[in-house]
């Protein structure tokens, strides 16, 4: 990296973005301010290239209690119950450190659901690697699987489903998407909002260290050999603390006074605080000296951008802080009042009495420019379409073909993977991994909830629109197979660089296909995540939208499981 570049460029901002920042501020930003912008305006946090396209997704329906825009989506289950669910990716961290990358993915998605006021009840995961005959790919696979198990098992949340596919397209950039499903009573649902000038802002959970600084920016670049050198200190997940944080925050919900909660994910305190203030239309003042730290000598921007795990930001009614702090202490956790809600719409960061940053909340949270780059159909598609299937010879031995198919790592049993995940804890798993969708019973009712995660990058490579629609339809069929009716989806859009017209075309097409299928099936999109820049040495991965679907079964006793049951039963093929 050349030192002659201006800081904004080093931090990954474009010149037009830098100029807009100066305009929004009415002056040149200080280093602290610029660093906060660089994170908040990164693709990962700002959805600069995806927002306009995502608006095409259907997000409404009578069952939807919360659509996109919060920590997670929510659908109504009846009987006063609500289902909270969301998906998140940790592709780049997992490519660097598979165990911790995957573990922290699980931790993050769990906290998103917990921040909604819900109890997590299930986890799912969608994974992509290169061909497993390569030692590096096996290392990634086993590390990721162990990491997912490490976090989920320890938290006591069953991992009930998922999918794993191998293709050379993912050799340099594996995919790790993690989904969490939670349950709450309708009135328990929380929002990630800061409101009421004078109310307090607390950070709870772990102490803040220098880990993961710049993670959001890191996720917004392509991977290369050079990624090794400039990556941030890898974040290490602590599921033990994650579990304590979950218990403590639920205890806090019970005593009341909570205005809003958000997980500290990408962008750390900055992102959590600014987004909460933005949703509430308020300002906020934070004193970095009040943030409990793990390391000495941290600069204000390091504190504000650290991505240390197992932390959440809580907006609390003034006067409730002593009680809150007592609860977290009881669980052996940190809890500190770090700031206050203001009414001036400004995000003000102080170090003691000294103001180190003053930025309009709206500019930081929402001010990033939106891009609609060129989209162009990739050339490879023309070649592929020209392919004449008739030129393939008829196989001589279909038995041999069948054996070859069954031996493919993409068809073989996934038991090696899911046997490393606790899928029974919580006594809710009526149908676990190994079949179609998983089915969980809903305590206190006859109902069940079906959950499934599906995607097919290969189909999307061949036809992103159809491929994405097929993924939605496949998830729906799986949900139906256990006796449930599909309700809604969340999704993770894993693509290459949106600045490449071919990739952007795939992205737009896939979103259109997903929207079409969701409209046809009556399953609105309640949220999701976009992961761009999944490339290695300039080669994008297959376009890979991952669909996480939830459905409701009216009677969990009457579920269906795969597998032929008795000799003499009739076999029927449904559909064309």
């Amino acid at each position, binding site marked *: 990296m050349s030192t002659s570049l201006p800081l904004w460029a080093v931090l990954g901002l474009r010149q037009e973005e830098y100029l807009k920042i100066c305009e929004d501020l009415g002056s040149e930003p200080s280093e602290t301010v610029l660093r906060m912008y660089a994170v908040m305006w990164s693709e990962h946090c700002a959805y600069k290239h995806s927002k306009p396209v995502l608006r095409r997704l259907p997000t409404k329906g009578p069952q939807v209690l919360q659509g996109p825009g919060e920590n997670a989506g929510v659908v109504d289950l009846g009987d006063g119950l609500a289902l909270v669910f969301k998906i998140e990716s940790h592709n780049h961290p997992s490519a660097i450190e598979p165990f911790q990358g995957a573990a922290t993915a699980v931790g993050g998605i769990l906290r998103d659901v917990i921040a909604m006021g819900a109890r997590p009840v299930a986890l799912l995961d969608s994974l992509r690697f290169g061909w497993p005959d390569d030692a590096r790919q096996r290392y990634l696979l086993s590390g990721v699987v*162990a990491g997912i*198990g*490490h976090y989920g*098992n*320890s*938290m*006591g949340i069953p991992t009930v489903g998922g999918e794993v596919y191998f293709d050379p397209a993912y050799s340099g950039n594996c995919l790790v998407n993690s989904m969490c499903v939670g349950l709450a009573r309708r009135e328990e649902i929380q929002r990630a909002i800061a409101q009421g000038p004078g109310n307090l802002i607390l950070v709870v959970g772990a102490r803040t260290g220098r880990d993961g600084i710049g993670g959001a920016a890191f996720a917004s670049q392509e991977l290369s050999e050079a990624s090794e050198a400039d990556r941030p200190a890898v974040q290490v997940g*602590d*599921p*033990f*603390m994650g*579990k*304590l944080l979950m218990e403590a925050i639920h205890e806090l919900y019970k005593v009341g006074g909570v205005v809003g909660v958000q997980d500290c994910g990408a962008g750390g305190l900055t992102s959590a605080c600014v987004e909460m203030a933005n949703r509430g239309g308020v300002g906020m003042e934070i004193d970095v000296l009040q943030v409990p730290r793990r390391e000495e000598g941290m600069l204000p921007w390091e504190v504000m951008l650290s991505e240390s795990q197992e932390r959440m930001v809580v907006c609390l009614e003034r006067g409730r802080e002593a009680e809150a702090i007592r609860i977290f202490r009881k*669980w*052996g956790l940190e809890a500190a009042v770090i700031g206050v809600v203001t009414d001036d719409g400004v995000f003000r960061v102080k170090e003691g009495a000294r103001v180190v940053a003053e930025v309009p909340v709206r500019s930081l949270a929402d001010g990033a420019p939106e891009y609609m780059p060129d989209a162009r159909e990739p050339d490879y598609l023309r070649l592929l379409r020209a392919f004449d299937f008739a030129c393939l010879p008829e196989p001589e031995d279909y038995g041999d073909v069948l054996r070859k198919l069954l031996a493919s790592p993409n068809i073989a049993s996934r*038991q090696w993977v*899911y*046997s*490393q*995940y*606790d*899928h*029974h*804890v*919580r*006594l809710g*798993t*009526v149908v676990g991994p190994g079949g179609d969708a998983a089915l969980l*019973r809903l305590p206190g009712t006859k109902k069940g909830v079906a959950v499934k995660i599906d995607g097919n990058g290969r189909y999307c490579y061949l036809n992103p629109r159809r491929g994405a629609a097929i993924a939605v339809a496949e998830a729906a069929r799986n949900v139906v197979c256990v006796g449930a009716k599909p309700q809604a989806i969340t999704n993770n859009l894993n693509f290459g660089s949106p600045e490449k017209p071919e990739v952007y075309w795939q992205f737009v097409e896939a979103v259109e296909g997903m929207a079409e299928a969701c409209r046809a099936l009556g399953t609105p999109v309640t949220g999701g995540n976009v992961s761009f820049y999944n490339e290695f040495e300039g080669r994008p991965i297959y376009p890979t939208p991952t669909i996480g679907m939830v459905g409701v079964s009216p009677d*969990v*006793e009457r579920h269906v499981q795969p597998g032929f049951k008795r000799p003499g039963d009739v076999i029927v093929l449904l559909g064309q």
Partner: protein
Amino acid sequence: MAKFGILVFPGTNCEIDVLRVLRYLLHQDAELVWHTEQDLERYDAVILPGGFSYGDYLRAGAIARWAPVIEAVYDIAEKGRLVLGICNGFQILTEAGLLPGALQRNRHLRYVCGWTHVRVERIDTPFTSAYREGQVLRIPISHGEGNFYADPDTLAEIEKWGQVVLRYANPDGQLTETANPNGSLHHIAGIMNKAGNVMGLMPHPERACEAILGSEDGCGIFASMIHYLTRGRVFHVD
């Protein structure tokens, strides 16, 4: 009705499952007990449920074994009350020296969750009287450190005193290599102390108490305890 205390350490995660089985399926008086409690006098039986106490850091069960409540567990164990350790609870009991041996990392080094079969080695115990001799139970396991180890002398002693209560077996009750999910010596899945009132097992009986969850075979463990406690049956090993 018997009164059960279910111990909760930071990181325990199966306490609610055990509570649900005892309270709602078996209609017992059961409650959760925080690890700082120093008196367990009021309970007829104490259960140490599964989970990851203290994150399983250092060694599974190593840190929980020093929790204040463990002193009280020694007390009531001494007095002949029933103590049952499930999974992490078993690990804690061995770390505390209430049961012999240790639970090492699984032989294949992976965490393993799934259905196993275990053979009931004796039915003249407060934990297994509801079963038939040699009955094979279908019960799930879920652990990374369940590989039972004891040095040869200790192992011989465990066998001599008939302390092995459950062994991993195939569905026909045979001790085949593939039926052993973690490399445990002598296929040990569950043992008791010499007095017969403290038992630990790696499988999760609370996960096998309802047909809709796949098996009811685990229920007998709790039913046996209740039977023992409410009928006041006297019990001796040897």
